[in-house]
Each structure stands twice: as structure tokens, then as C-alpha cells.
């Protein structure tokens, strides 16, 4: 069976060249960078080289890069670390309602520990309003954290504007660039941010490695304690193969960025055009232009997302509904809810995210399979154009039980 992977926003296959680097640093240059002998020094040198490579991807200085175990840890370190370093362990944090759970749940954790958090709304395209950010800033605001590109609908936020307004009031800005860095041009200085989270496995690097950019002078405390690794900000023996692999992935991403962007955008547009032509009642989610080039998030009316995904999966096509990280749960995506999309529509949302390995044939195969899947499920659905949904009177006994 043909297998077509269209879930690159969830994770990517590791580039063969990247895997080769990982193996080299597992089996050959395997030393502990803290060791003073030759094995250790080789590893140390390699890690510092990798730091420079990753820094260059986002226009940072090598000393401003701190390796972590992934995007989630980078988000946690940024937010918890800045909060911990804040004067009296209390204060105010500003974020948005469409952040990844790594940011949202960290904010909620801090809320329980005494911090105040403002969760800013977004417009129908999932966009945060910089003026609202500025208005939300208080005297005790210790951090603003707004993502660069949304993992679900692909919307790119006006971070440069947010950071400019924040800088005027002296508030540091963190941005979760996990979906952006390596996929679109990102520059910490042009954006003007103070902290930025990166992850390797979204750009053809391995899972389990990420990085936090911290602008020099930013007050931040470690959250994982132990040895003096990563200049005291993140303890733990460095994941040398992961770090070197992430650097290789970053290097390739930087070198091939224009081609990759053009390639995925062309496939994405071919897909959207074909889908809209073949299937009625499909809507694009997210911003029409300020969006990641590889993201096609759509809502297919009158069908439920998982049933579409399962049918696609049966025919070898991998896509996602909502973000992969939460697809094990039944709650409708918090991102689509925040964008004001009605529940019956958001339940039919699907995310197709393209990658460097996809081809036009992949797209054409999906355009062959998907319309008939949708047609079959629509035929099975009690909802549909013109049909009025049953409404409250059809209430079910189980409604009060919540949803698992």
C-alpha cells in the first residue's frame, strides 16, 4: 500500500544525513563533554560547534543557545525559569489562548503557585492583537510569551510588533518557535525577542533535543539542577548525539530553506485547490496569508475528524486532527475554540502538513482518496447542508458525565 505522510507538524522523519551524525556521536565520538581527556574534549568541541550552528539558524550568538530535551522543556525552562528568577516569586505573565500546551499548562501551573496570567484572545484567523498585549502589560508583568507560528492552524503571530511594544515597557518576550525555526526564516534580533524555544524533531532532526535561546542579560534561573552543564542553566549530561544531530538538521534547514518552503507551499496549494474543487463545504482554518507554508488546516463540515483520519489511515495516509499532542483526548481543539469556530465545525477539522519528502503524486493520491472518504461519512452523518441539527431536545442521558 502507498503510504503518504502528511503530518510533519507532529514530527518529521530524521534526515538520513542527520541520522548518520547521530550514530557517529553514539559510537565513535562518544565521550562525556565534561571529561578532560581526549574522548571528552572531542565531544565538548563538537557540542560547542553545534551550538554555533543552531545559533546561526536564528541569528543568535552561540553563548545564547542552551540545549534542552525538546521544545516542551525549552518552553518550561523559559517560563518557569524567568518566573523563578523574578524578584519575589510572584508576578504577572501574558500569553495567548492559542499557545501549545507546553506553554499553557506551564502558565496554569504558575497560576496555582501564585502568579497571575492573562490569556489573550485571538481573532478568527488565530491572530493575537499586539495592542491588546500592550494594554495587558502591568507593573508586575515579568514575561510575555506568544508563539511564533501556531502548530495547528499555522498562523504566524506579529511577534516583532509585540516585542517592540514590550521592550518599551521593559518586559522580556518569549516566543515558542518550535514550528517556525528551520521551516521559515527566523531571526531573534529582527523579532526582538529575549527567549525562543526550538525543537529538533520538527525539522528532520531526532526527538528528544531542543534548545532555548536566551538573550544575554535576561534574568532566568535553572529548573533542572545538578552539574554545571549548559553554563549552569540546564543540568544533565549533554545529549551529544542529539545535539549534533539537531545542528546537522539546522544546517540543512538553513541551506535548503528557500527550496523547502517553495516545495511544501506548492504541494499545499495544489492540495487545497484540489480539495476545494472536489468537496463542497470545506473551510480553511487560520490566516489566509500569514501562515506556515506547509500547513493546510481545514474544517470539513458534517463529518467528524477522527473518522476521516481513520479512513485515510486505512488507505495509508497520515494526517492529524487538532494537534497530535492532544489527539489522545476528546476535547475539541482549544485553538479552534479560541478562534470562535463553532464546535460542530471544529469537530471536523483536519491538519495536513507537508514535508520535504512529499511529492505531487502524494497530493494527487490524497485528492483521490479523501473526497470519497468524506462522501461516505457524510452519507452516514445525521448532519448536512439544509438539514437542521436536532438541537437540545435530543439531549442525551450521558451529557452530565463529561467526556472521559
Amino acid at each position: 500500500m502507498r503510504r503518504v505522510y502528511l503530518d510533519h507538524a507532529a514530527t518529521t522523519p530524521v534526515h538520513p544525513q542527520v541520522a548518520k551524525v547521530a550514530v557517529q556521536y553514539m559510537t565513535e565520538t562518544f565521550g562525556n563533554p565534561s571529561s578532560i581527556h581526549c574522548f571528552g574534549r572531542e565531544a565538548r568541541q563538537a557540542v560547542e560547534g553545534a551550538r554555533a550552528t543552531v545559533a546561526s539558524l536564528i541569528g543568535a550568538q552561540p553563548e545564547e543557545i542552551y540545549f534542552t530535551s525538546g521544545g516542551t522543556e525549552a518552553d518550561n525552562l523559559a517560563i518557569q525559569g524567568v518566573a523563578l528568577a523574578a524578584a519575589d516569586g510572584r508576578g504577572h505573565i501574558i500569553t495567548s489562548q492559542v499557545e501549545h500546551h507546553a506553554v499553557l499548562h506551564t502558565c496554569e501551573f504558575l497560576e496555582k503557585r501564585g502568579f497571575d496570567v492573562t490569556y489573550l484572545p485571538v481573532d478568527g484567523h488565530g491572530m493575537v492583537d499586539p495592542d491588546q498585549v500592550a494594554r495587558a502589560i502591568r507593573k508586575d508583568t515579568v514575561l510575555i510569551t506568544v508563539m511564533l507560528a501556531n502548530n495547528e492552524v499555522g498562523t504566524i503571530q506579529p511577534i516583532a510588533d509585540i516585542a517592540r511594544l514590550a521592550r518599551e515597557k521593559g518586559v522580556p518576550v518569549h516566543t515558542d518557535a518550535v514550528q517556525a525555526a528551520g521551516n521559515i526564516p527566523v531571526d531573534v534580533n529582527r523579532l526582538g525577542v529575549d527567549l525562543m524555544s526550538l525543537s529538533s524533531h520538527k525539522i528532520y532532526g531526532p526527538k528528544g533535543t531542543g534548545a532555548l535561546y536566551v538573550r544575554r542579560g535576561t534574568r532566568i534561573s535553572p529548573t533542572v539542577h545538578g552539574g554545571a552543564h549548559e553554563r549552569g542553566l540546564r543540568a544533565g549530561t549533554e545529549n551529544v548525539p542529539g545535539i549534533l544531530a539537531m545542528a546537522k538538521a539546522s544546517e540543512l534547514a538553513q541551506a535548503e530553506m528557500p527550496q523547502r518552503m517553495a516545495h511544501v507551499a506548492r504541494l499545499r496549494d495544489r492540495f487545497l485547490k484540489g480539495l476545494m474543487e472536489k468537496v463542497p463545504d470545506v473551510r480553511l482554518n487560520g490566516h489566509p496569508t500569514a501562515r506556515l507554508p506547509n500547513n493546510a488546516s481545514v474544517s470539513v463540515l458534517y463529518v467528524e475528524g477522527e473518522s476521516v483520519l481513520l479512513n485515510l489511515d486505512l488507505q495509508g495516509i497520515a494526517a492529524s486532527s487538532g494537534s497530535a499532542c492532544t489527539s489522545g483526548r476528546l476535547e475539541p481543539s482549544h485553538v479552534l475554540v479560541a478562534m470562535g469556530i463553532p464546535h460542530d465545525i471544529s469537530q471536523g477539522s483536519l491538519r495536513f502538513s507537508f514535508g520535504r519528502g512529499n511529492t505531487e503524486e502524494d497530493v494527487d493520491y490524497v485528492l483521490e482518496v479523501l473526497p470519497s472518504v468524506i462522501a461516505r461519512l457524510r452519507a452516514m452523518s445525521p448532519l448536512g447542508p439544509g438539514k437542521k441539527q436536532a438541537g437540545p431536545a435530543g439531549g442525551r442521558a450521558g451529557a452530565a458525565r463529561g467526556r472521559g
Partner: protein
Amino acid sequence: MYSEKVMEHFTNPRNVGEIPDADGVGQVGNPVCGDIMRMYIKVRRGRIADIKFKTFGCGAAIATSSMVTELVKGKSVAEALEISNRTVAEALGGLPPHKMHCSNLAADALHRAIQDYLGKKKASGAEGRGARVGTRAGRPGRGGAAKQGRRWSGRRTGAQT
């Protein structure tokens, strides 16, 4: 994630469709939860002679809908009322835990359809109709439920429909 049996019913669901002149129609769910199931039944001599469903929902919702129709066909109304959501899940070889409460409601839909049928029978028989203002027999998805006086437990679904 899903058992083979679930996938088999999901892939080849039995008894999909509507019964225009159904004796009873029942619906559960709403799009906030993610699943809507509607059951149509035909009753002959106290037995479920025919049953069809329409479902908007995930794999589990479709598979349980299909399974319940298979389990119930030919059963007496009393027997059908004994089939629970749990019976359905077991017949499917189990469901993922997080699907047990949300998508495993096909038996509830069946029971609604039977109540609708019993209510209509009663109405077309002897008793008064004061309690049934605003419901028209045979209109899909309305009917029995209103009588229960149970509504949406505060969820803001109205805006979405």
C-alpha cells in the same frame, strides 16, 4: 488503538441509513462531545424488525452504532432495552478507556428510539396528550427525550447548532 472488531465495524458499518416511516427515532449526543447518533426502528409483533442509524462521530461512535444495530435486530423490545452501552463495548472486544464514556452511547440512542416508539404507541392508544406539547410524533430526534425533562446540563450547545 481500536480492536480489530471495532475497525471491522468502522470499515463496514451495518445498517447505515434512515427509515422514513420509522416506528421510533432516538438521538443522543451533540457536536460539543463530538458524536451524534440517531437510531430508527421498525417494530413488528414486539420485535425489532428493522433498525438503521446515522452517526456523526469518531471511529468508536460509528462502530458502536453499527454493533448495536446488529445486536438488536430480531430481539424483543424488552430484550433490546437490556442491551447497555457496556454490552456493546464488550461485543466489540473493548474500547479505549477514553472512548468508553463519550463515544459509547449507541445503546442510549436505541433506548431513546424505543421510548419514542412506546410513547407514540401510548399516544395513539388511550391516554391524554397534555404532557407532549410541542412534540410531533415521527419527527426525527424529537420525541421521548423531552418528556424526561432532562436537558443540556449547562453546556452552551445552543449557539453551535
